[in-house]
C-alpha cells in the first residue's frame, strides 16, 4: 500500500455564510500527479489556501503523511512539507533569481545558521552560505535558469518566472507540491514546455504533485487522477479518463445541452 501524502476529510470553509468549499475529500498517494479542476469560482484555489494555511478551515481536517496539519500557519505548513506556487506569479521581484531560490532553502536543516553567526560572519556562516549558493545553482541549472541567476526576478520572461516559482518551491524540500494554474497566460508552446517541466519534476525529484488547471490538454496529458469541483462541492473524482468522460463534468464545463 503506497503511502498517503495528503488527505483531507470533509474540508470546507464558509465566508459569512457563503460556503466557498464544502466536503472536499482528497486522498493523494505518494508519487501521484493529481489534478483539481473545475469551472471558474468552483473553489479550487480556496482548497489550496485551506491546505496551505492561508485560511483556517471552518470544517474538516487536513492530514499530511498522517499528521494533522489543520489550522497550522502557512510557515509551519511549508516547514512540514507543502510548497506551492501562485495563480498570479508571486516572486520576490526586487531580488535576484538565485536569491529567490535561496530564500526557499533557508529552512533546510543542513543550512542552520543563526543571526549572530550571520552578523559576525563565523566559519559556520561561510559554510552554509557557500553550500546554499551551490545548492541554489544546481536547482537553477536544472530549470535552465543558471545564466539568469543574477538578474532581478522581475526582469525574467513570463515562462521563466513560472519555472523560477517552481524551483523556489522545490527549494523548500517539500513532500507535496501544489501548483496553482501553472499554465495560466501561456501560449500552447509554452504550455507544452511546462508539461515537460512538471513531468520532469515529478520523476526526478520524486515529487507528489497536486495541480489546479483550466487547460484540459495539460490536465489530460499529465494527470493520473482528478477531482472535479463545482460550486465548492466535489462533482466527481477518479482516474483522469473516466472523469473527463463523465457527463456531469461535461455539463459543468459546457453547460446543459437543453
Amino acid at each position, binding site marked *: 500500500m503506497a503511502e498517503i501524502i495528503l488527505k483531507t476529510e470533509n474540508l470546507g470553509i464558509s465566508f459569512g455564510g457563503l460556503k466557498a468549499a464544502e466536503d472536499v475529500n482528497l486522498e493523494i498517494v505518494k508519487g501521484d500527479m493529481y489534478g483539481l479542476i473545475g469551472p471558474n469560482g468552483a473553489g479550487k484555489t480556496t482548497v489550496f489556501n485551506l491546505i496551505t494555511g*492561508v485560511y483556517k478551515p471552518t470544517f474538516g481536517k487536513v492530514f499530511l503523511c498522517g499528521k494533522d496539519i489543520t489550522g497550522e*500557519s*502557512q*510557515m509551519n505548513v*511549508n*516547514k512540514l512539507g507543502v*510548497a*506551492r506556487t*501562485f495563480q498570479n506569479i*508571486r*516572486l*520576490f*521581484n*526586487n*531580488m*535576484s533569481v538565485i*536569491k*529567490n531560490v*535561496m*530564500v*526557499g*532553502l*533557508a529552512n*533546510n536543516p*543542513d543550512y542552520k*545558521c543563526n*543571526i549572530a553567526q*550571520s*552578523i559576525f*560572519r563565523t*566559519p559556520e556562516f*561561510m*559554510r552554509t*552560505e*557557500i*553550500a*546554499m*549558493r*551551490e*545548492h541554489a*545553482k*544546481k*536547482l537553477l*541549472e*536544472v*530549470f*535552465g535558469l*543558471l*545564466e539568469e*541567476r*543574477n*538578474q532581478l526576478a522581475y526582469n525574467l520572461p513570463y515562462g521563466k518566472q513560472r519555472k523560477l516559482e517552481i524551483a*523556489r518551491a522545490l527549494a*523548500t524540500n517539500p513532500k507535496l507540491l501544489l501548483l496553482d494554474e501553472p499554465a495560466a497566460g501561456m501560449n500552447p508552446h509554452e504550455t507544452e*514546455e511546462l508539461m*515537460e517541466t512538471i513531468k*520532469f519534476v515529478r*520523476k*526526478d*525529484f520524486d515529487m507528489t504533485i497536486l495541480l489546479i488547471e483550466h487547460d484540459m490538454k495539460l490536465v489530460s496529458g499529465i494527470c493520473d487522477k482528478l477531482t472535479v469541483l463545482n460550486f465548492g462541492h466535489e462533482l466527481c473524482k477518479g482516474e483522469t479518463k473516466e472523469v473527463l468522460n463523465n457527463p456531469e463534468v461535461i455539463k459543468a464545463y459546457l453547460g446543459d445541452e437543453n
Partner: protein
Amino acid sequence: MNGFIRYFSAVKARFKLKNYLTYFIFLAFILIFAPLGLTGSLKMSTEFMLEQIGYSIVAAISLSLVVGFLGELSLGHAGFMSIGAMVGALLQNKLYPSLSASSPFLALVIAMIVGGLAAAVFGFIIGLPALRLKGDYLAIVTLAFCQIVQTIFEQLPFFGGTLGIANAARYSSHKLFIVIFVVALISLVAINNFIKSKHGRAVMAIRDNEIAARAMGVNVSFNKIFVFVFSSFIAGIAGVLMAASKNTVAANAFTYNYSIDILVMVVLGGMGNINGSIVAATLITVLNISLNNVFTGSMAAIKNIVYALVLILIVIYTNAPGLKSFREKHGFGVYWSKFTAKIVKLFSKKELKQDPAKEKEFGADWSKVPTKVEMDAILSTDLTPDKSYVSDKPAPDGKTDGSGKGDK
C-alpha cells in the same frame, strides 16, 4: 587550524574590492582625520561637523534597514534615538562621579550599550503593531510613538523636563568624532552582514511579497520584529552619540521633523542602498551646515526653501515614471557604478568584464572556493535530468551535462 585556513581561503575567494569599497573609504577617512583630531589641529566647527556627519550616518543606515529592506515606512525614528540619547546621557552623568574622571570613554561605551538596549526594547514594542499593520497605518503608529516619547520625556523631572539634561561627562571633542566614525563603521559592517545573509534575504522576501514569503516558510513575525529591534538598537546608539556631541540633551531635539530629516537621507540615497544612504547623510549634513553659515538671521528661510526644492526635484527626478528612460541613461546609479568601476580598476589592475551573469552582490566566484563542501550529502535528490522526458522540445535543463557540475 584546518578550519581556520579554510575560513580565510573562503573569505579570500569571495573577496572583491567593490563590495568592501565603502569600508575602505571609511577607514581611510578615519586614518586621515584621527591624527589631525588627536593633535588638536582641527577647528571646533570642523570637529562638530564630523561628529554630526558620523551620527547622521549611523541614524540613516539604521533607518534604511526598516525602510529600504523591510519596506515599512517609519516616521518615528527620532523617538528611538531620543530614548537612546536620554537614557545614555542620564547614565553617563550618574556614572561619571563613580568612575574615575579619566574614563569618560568607558562611560560613553556603557551609555551606548545601555542606550541601544533601551531603544531596542521600544523597538520590540513598536515591532508588535507592525505584525498587524502595514504601510501608512504603521507609519502613523511610528509617528505617534515619536510624539508620545517626546511628551513623556518632557514631563519626567529626572530627564530634565523641557530643558533637558546637561552633559556633565562630555567626552573629549578631539576624540569624539573618531569614536563616532568607528561606531559608524562597525554598525555598517553589522548591517551589511545581516542583509547579505539568509536572514537578510528573508527580510527582503517579506518586503517583496509577504504572502509568498510565508508560503516559503519565512517566519514573518520574527523577522519583522527583529528588524525593528536591530534598527532601533543602532538608532539608540546614534542617539547616544548625538547626545555626546551636544552640551545639553533635550527631548525636543528629537521631534517628528528630525525623523523626517533622517528619512530624507534614506530616500535620497536610494531605497535599499546603504552606501547611498551614507552619501546622502554626508551631503545633506554638509549642505545643511554650510547653508546655515551662508543664510543667517531672517535669510535662514532661504536655506529651507532651497532644501525643500532640492528634495522635491530629486524625488521627482529619481521616481517619476515619465523620466524612466532618461534615468536609465543619465541616472545617479549609472555614474556611481562607472565611478566604482574606475576605483576598482585603479587598485586591482584587472580588466573589468561587463558580464551580464556576473555575481552582483557577493561578487565572488563560489565555485572556486577551495572548501570541500559535501554537496552530495546535502543534495539528497538526484538532479540529473532524465533524457527520456526530453521529447522534441528543448528540455528545461538542456544545458546540463549530467555531471551536475556543469555550471561556470
